[in-house]
């Protein structure tokens, strides 16, 4: 006899949880937190043992674990320490305060979005040029590719200095650094996307004697939309990295990058980690937002569900 798993309520629930996304997501998150806690104990233990011995305190294993998870300047802060710090600096401060993480996130976000918009336009324009003018592919592509082999960390101060010399300060130089990272995936994706129409679709529009402009708007561009969204997801995350890097050489005045730098000057590891975690959350949210936009657009374009 075979038993029907759905007839047993507890087994049915377990099946449902692990058949969907909930189970795997919970399992992976739990594993990450466990590894993080174990790492925190292990990495913070030497300093703690040293402290116990100097104070000549008898200590047990449970004392050690407890103390390693509440140090002021741990090598690796525990997750709850970071979350408490985030809670304090996100919800506990006025958003105009320099101590508010919301304020710093706002600064970084405006740089990110400006860089993303410029980068997407630039990346798209380059792709359109490359697809339509064969000479541009040969002359531009090597520069575009080698531009990405230069570490942005080395280039960022140069960009700040050069743009500063021509009078550009503040938001724009940082956005340009962000643009520098994010135009690339858009160019690569859009070149592929604009070339994705099959020969039959191209022949068809040729028999209508469509000009290049019409071929672009009625065939190439709509064909490239799925590629565009894939590129935008990579580009927005790259924009955020660029924005953070761009904040470092400007004297660490404001933004998540400034928090990272200030934190490392003063050994405030908890501050560093909360800035890192905030940046990661913001990036994930922006990628998710583009994902929603993608779903909506593709549905409007009649993609088979």
């Amino acid at each position, binding site marked *: 006899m075979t038993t029907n798993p759905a007839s047993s309520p507890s087994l049915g629930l377990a099946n449902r949880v692990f058949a969907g996304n909930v189970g795997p997501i919970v399992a992976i998150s739990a594993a990450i937190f466990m590894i993080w806690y174990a790492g925190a104990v292990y990495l913070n233990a030497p300093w703690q043992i040293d402290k116990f011995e100097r104070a000549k305190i008898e200590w047990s294993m449970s004392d050690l674990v407890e103390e390693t998870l509440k140090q002021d300047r741990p090598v690796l802060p525990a997750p709850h320490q970071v979350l408490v710090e985030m809670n304090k600096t996100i919800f506990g401060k006025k958003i105009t305060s320099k101590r508010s993480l919301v304020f710093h996130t706002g600064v970084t976000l405006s740089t990110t979005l400006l860089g993303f918009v410029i980068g997407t336009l630039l990346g798209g324009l380059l792709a359109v040029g490359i697809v339509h003018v064969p000479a541009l592919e040969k002359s531009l592509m090597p520069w575009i590719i080698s531009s990405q082999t230069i570490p942005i960390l080395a280039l960022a101060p140069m960009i700040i200095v050069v743009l500063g010399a021509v009078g550009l300060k503040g938001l724009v130089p940082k956005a340009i650094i962000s643009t520098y990272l994010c135009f690339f995936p858009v160019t690569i994706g859009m070149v592929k996307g604009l070339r994705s129409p099959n020969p*039959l*679709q191209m*022949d*068809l*529009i*040729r*028999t*209508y*004697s*469509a000009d290049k402009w*019409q071929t672009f708007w*009625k*065939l190439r561009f*709509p064909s490239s*939309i799925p590629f565009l969204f894939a590129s935008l997801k990579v580009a927005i995350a790259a924009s955020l990295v660029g924005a953070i890097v761009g904040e470092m050489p400007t004297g660490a005045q404001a933004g998540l990058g400034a928090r990272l730098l200030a934190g490392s000057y003063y050994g405030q590891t908890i501050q560093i980690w909360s800035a890192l975690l905030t940046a990661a959350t913001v990036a994930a949210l922006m990628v998710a937002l583009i994902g929603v936009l993608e779903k909506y657009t593709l549905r409007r*374009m*009649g*993609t*088979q569900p």
Partner: protein
Amino acid sequence: MKCEKLSLTFETADGPVFALSDIDLQINHGEFISFIGPSGCGKTTLLRTIADLEKSTGGTITINGVSPEQARLKRDYGYVFQSSALYPWRTIEKNIALPLEIMGLPAAEQKARVAKNLELVDLTGFEQKFPWQLSGGMQQRVSIARALCLEPELLLMDEPFGALDEIVRDHLNEQLLRLWDKTDKTVVFVTHSIPEAVFLSTKIVVMSPRPGKIIDVIESGFPRDRTLDIRETTEFLEIAHRVREGLRAGHSYDD
């Protein structure tokens, strides 16, 4: 349409490929011409040359007295491909309107022509559907409507029903014939099915490969309003036999 000593050679890495050689052919207004032959005989290439999708490398070809390029620029023909080549992000209505949008016709005129041609291929009511929601045969009918809405004198069809099953194909053949009878267009039709060619055509052009050339041109005298029943007649079988003989002769030195 007229071609004289038409030839086309593709230069490839392994040396030249003679896709077409010394094609002499005249097509008169209102005819239904089929090109038939084995794959690689250049029948599709010949059709693509008429449509200015390939350029001939020798000889002359004119369509209503002008070159294929001028004919294409004037949108003198409608082309139906082996597969429907519908744009998946456009609804059926928008797919049919595509050539009209490119021509820049006013919206009202576009709407009227789309409605008229959808009715002609018996697909009224599917305007708002997307291509994937239609069967293969329906998609091909949409592509015929799209070619017709240009209101061309000349309809070029490259194995339009090749990918469909026989029952659907028979049905579409009959529909196509009625359409041709009603609209008085010239149709050039590429196929590798003998019954299809004999049933549809007023003139059958038999071709052979390497180099692509014409072996035989067979006139058939069936009435314009013929039905699928003629396929049982002796006259039909005789013409089919002659086509088969021609194809065999073209192949004989191949083995």
